[in-house]
């Protein structure tokens, strides 16, 4: 019950202000169509750099939780999911809005997000420490394979194309090798003074997530999108909340699916929402009502995508394998505060880690309260013009990147990587594996070189890297992850060809 020992740390004025501010900002940013939760968290990282680690992580955690829930607002009011995690919410949520029950749908969203979110955080609390102990058994080879597994999983399961996903991850690793060799200290690929200290994680995070978003926003700014925001309608808050809490089956299906999908590295909220929606429909007594404004559809999808948040941090905090793209960004947030995933988080840094995890639990309460209040007044969020959003993100990206090391080079690197990612995304590459490559690349290289030295003095490098239960299991997991994704992709391609 370690988590109870640090619960009091959350209830300081400063931490509470951060929780409320982070939750409100997260809900608003999440609700803005086109702004992804991953970008929102990435953009916030420079602000946390100047804070105490616990305070910084509290802000990031609150943003992560709230952006996922906030995406439901635009999904319901304008049928444009604020985040991929809210795609399933739009199916019945927007139909409810069509029937003049938008406020009711939003109440369902935040209540079920709260239930799913709390259950998910409990999974994080009880499953993380034992898994972190497992990491104690890891030597250089295991850590090398863990890094490779992380990149492999997010590059395959989290991407639409296996090859492009893996290529993205490898590009990230290649970028991480710019700068000094970790063992010999000699510079590599330093063709300009701006690359002397390599690529800073935050510059990469902001460049890869925020800049493509800015360019996409300005690209769409002139499009005539006459989206009509639906009226919220009249609905009794207490009645809606009580009705929602009574939908035990939909809540259980959503939460369970969210928890399972969250623990699977790389899967993310989109899969959680869609699978939960599908299961709720299949197990419903009236499946024909789904897609026509069935509250259970909204409840299952929303409880699932928020139940995913906590469990997605389990592999992240223990093995540095993120459960979702946003969790990958959160890994960057941990590293800039000198916190490395693994057992140390629960021993040396126990106070920071447990305060952060406990704050996620409190963040669910704020998300519920602020979300329910915002439900009554959320129409204005949809009306913020795209060019204001683009200009604000643009300036925040430049200032945020500069503020980390007071380095102009970081701004240049951020802008270059961002423009590159914008074009790469148009060709089907995704930023999450690149970021993970940049973050895990140095870990992989460092441990690879250490393992190589040990292997050379023993039975040989190949044998050292491939022997032992842990090494073999990790290699098998890498192969299974790639094999499964190749199989799914070819199956999907065959289906497409058949339809065509």
């Amino acid at each position, binding site marked *: 019950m370690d988590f109870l020992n640090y619960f009091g740390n959350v209830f300081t004025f400063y931490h509470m202000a951060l929780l409320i501010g982070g939750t409100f900002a997260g809900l608003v940013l999440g609700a803005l169509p086109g702004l992804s939760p991953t970008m929102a968290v990435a953009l916030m990282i420079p*602000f946390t750099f*100047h804070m105490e680690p616990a305070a910084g992580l509290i802000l990031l955690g609150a943003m992560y939780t709230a952006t996922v829930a906030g995406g439901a607002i635009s999904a319901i009011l304008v049928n444009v999911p604020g985040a991929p995690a809210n795609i399933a919410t739009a199916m019945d949520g927007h139909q409810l809005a069509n029937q003049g029950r938008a406020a009711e749908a939003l109440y369902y969203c935040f209540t079920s997000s709260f239930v799913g979110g709390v259950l998910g955080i409990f999974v994080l609390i009880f499953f993380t420490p034992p898994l972190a102990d497992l990491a104690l058994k890891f030597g250089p080879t295991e850590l090398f394979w863990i890094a490779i597994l992380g990149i492999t999983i997010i590059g395959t399961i989290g991407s639409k194309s296996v*090859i*492009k996903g*893996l*290529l993205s991850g*490898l*590009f990230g*690793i*290649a970028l991480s*090798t710019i700068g000094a*060799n970790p063992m*010999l200290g*000699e510079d*590599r*690929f330093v063709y300009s003074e701006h690359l002397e200290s390599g690529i800073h994680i935050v510059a990469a995070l902001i460049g890869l997530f925020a800049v493509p978003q*800015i*360019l996409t926003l*300005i*690209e769409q*700014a*002139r499009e005539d999108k006459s989206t009509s925001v639906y009226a919220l309608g009249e609905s009794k808050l207490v009645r809606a909340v009580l009705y929602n809490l009574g939908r035990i089956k939909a809540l259980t299906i959503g939460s369970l699916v969210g928890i399972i999908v969250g623990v699977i590295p790389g899967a993310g909220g989109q899969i959680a929402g869609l699978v939960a929606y599908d299961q709720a429909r299949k197990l419903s007594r009236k499946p024909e009502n789904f897609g026509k404004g069935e509250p259970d559809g909204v409840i299952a999808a929303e409880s699932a995508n928020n139940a995913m948040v906590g469990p997605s941090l389990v592999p992240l905090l223990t093995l540095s394998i993120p459960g979702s793209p946003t969790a990958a960004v959160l890994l960057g947030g941990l590293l800039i505060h000198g916190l490395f995933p693994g057992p140390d988080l629960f021993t040396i840094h126990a106070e920071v880690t447990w305060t952060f995890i406990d704050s996620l639990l409190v963040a669910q309460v704020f998300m519920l309260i602020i979300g329910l209040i915002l439900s009554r007044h959320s129409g204005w969020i949809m009306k913020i*013009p*795209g*060019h*204001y959003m*683009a*200009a*604000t993100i*643009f*300036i*925040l990206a*430049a*200032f945020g990147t*500069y*503020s980390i090391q*007071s380095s*102009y080079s970081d*701004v*240049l690197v951020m*802008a270059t990587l961002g*423009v590159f990612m914008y*074009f*790469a995304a*148009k*060709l*089907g*590459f995704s930023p999450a594996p690149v970021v993970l490559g940049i973050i895990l690349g140095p870990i*992989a*290289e460092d441990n*690879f*070189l250490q393992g*190589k030295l040990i292997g050379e003095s023993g039975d040989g490098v190949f044998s050292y890297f491939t022997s032992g239960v842990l090494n073999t299991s990790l290699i098998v997991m890498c192969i299974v992850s790639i094999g499964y994704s190749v199989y799914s992709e070819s199956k999907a391609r065959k289906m497409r060809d058949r339809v065509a």
Partner: protein
Amino acid sequence: MMKAFQSKDRMAAFYALVIAIVLLIASFYGTDAEVYLFPRITATFITVLALILAYDAFKQGGFSEQREIVLVDWKTLLPGLAVGIIYVLLLERVGFYTCSFFAFFAICMIYGKRSLFDPRAFVLKLLVTTVTLIVLYVLFWKLLNVRTPTGILF
């Protein structure tokens, strides 16, 4: 020749191959094997995957999808890109806040839905820009204590 790239996957494969070749040359040519060992392994894997991507992209569908694909709306994007490039280049020399003010205002003016010559829109955008920059100044300069380069203006 260009028809061969009128598919997103083919273009992706082409650019991936270009990057793979650049990485191979950069990590293998005239470099220390010990220092560049890991980049060399990475470059090799990238090349293998880029070749698989190219094989896959050119194999499927032959030249059947020879339709015009528009990936980027350059006419819309170029003014924004130009603002960004000028901003990044002048940032240090002119000063963070002055550059940010003009960049923010330029993006709002260029991409706003109302006419560039609408006086009400002009005043509104000027107001939004000024307020945003004041908020940023208070946040970074006063609260976070980040000293951005002041350049010749500020």
